């Protein structure tokens, strides 16, 4: 069985309960890699996820989503105070970003989550959304009512 990266997390072929992320199903790709790495046999290793990598990554996505939410709240406050539309638009974009981050976290790490693929599209979307927020805030500061 070869796992094609980028085929998306919803793979119906995935056997239930294996808990083995994607590329370990590629024979020979990391043969013997688990031995001597230390984490494999630890208690709480999460069924073949040494170091709880999946859980830590899920937490990182959730954390980032929370930060986006808090930043959006701050921008809504600032935008309302200064009647700056650009700041409010940036806040709206941040809410979208928070939703994207949380939605992907659920889809990928939730109960029905699929194998770990390298989420190149999602990361690019996240980067573009965050950069767009930055541009809007910058524009609001340079051109908006608060600039004076």
């Amino acid at each position, binding site marked *: 069985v070869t796992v094609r990266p980028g085929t998306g997390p919803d793979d119906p072929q995935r056997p239930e309960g294996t808990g083995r992320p994607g*590329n370990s199903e590629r024979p020979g790709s990391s043969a013997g890699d688990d031995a001597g790495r230390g984490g494999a046999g630890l208690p709480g290793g999460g069924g073949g996820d040494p170091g709880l*990598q999946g859980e830590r990554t899920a937490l990182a996505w959730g954390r*980032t989503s929370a930060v986006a939410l808090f930043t959006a709240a701050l921008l809504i406050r600032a935008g309302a105070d200064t009647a700056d539309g650009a*700041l409010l638009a940036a806040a709206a974009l941040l809410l979208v970003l928070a939703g994207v981050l949380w939605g992907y976290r659920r889809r990928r790490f939730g109960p029905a989550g699929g194998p770990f693929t390298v*989420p190149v599209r999602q990361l690019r979307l*996240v980067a*573009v959304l*965050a950069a767009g927020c930055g541009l809007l805030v910058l524009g609001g*500061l340079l051109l908006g009512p608060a600039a004076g």
Partner: protein
Amino acid sequence: MVREPAWYRTGDEPDYRFSLANERTFLAWIRSALALLAGSVAVLQFLPPAALSGMRNLLAGVLAAAGAVLPLAAYRRWSRIQRAMRLGRGLPFTPLLAVLAVGAGVLGVGVALLAVLP
């Protein structure tokens, strides 16, 4: 749908743990960028509009610009690391860390000065 980058199928799939660690590092950069944006707004909102109000706007502008650039730099760095891991090469050097550290230090001094100056 966005096209996948050229490196996406070169070399070998790295250990998934390293891929996930790389991904978490990217997300940490994104959080840093969002924090810079929050800082930019906070500078405008909470610092007194003193004689150095031009300085205040400059500070907020630099913070916001950094918040706009950092996510793209983070994506570029993530993809370069992923590519290096696929090809079994050493990880690329980045000046990003030093730039962020020095920049945050300088801006912090600026904010402190503005906060205490009349």
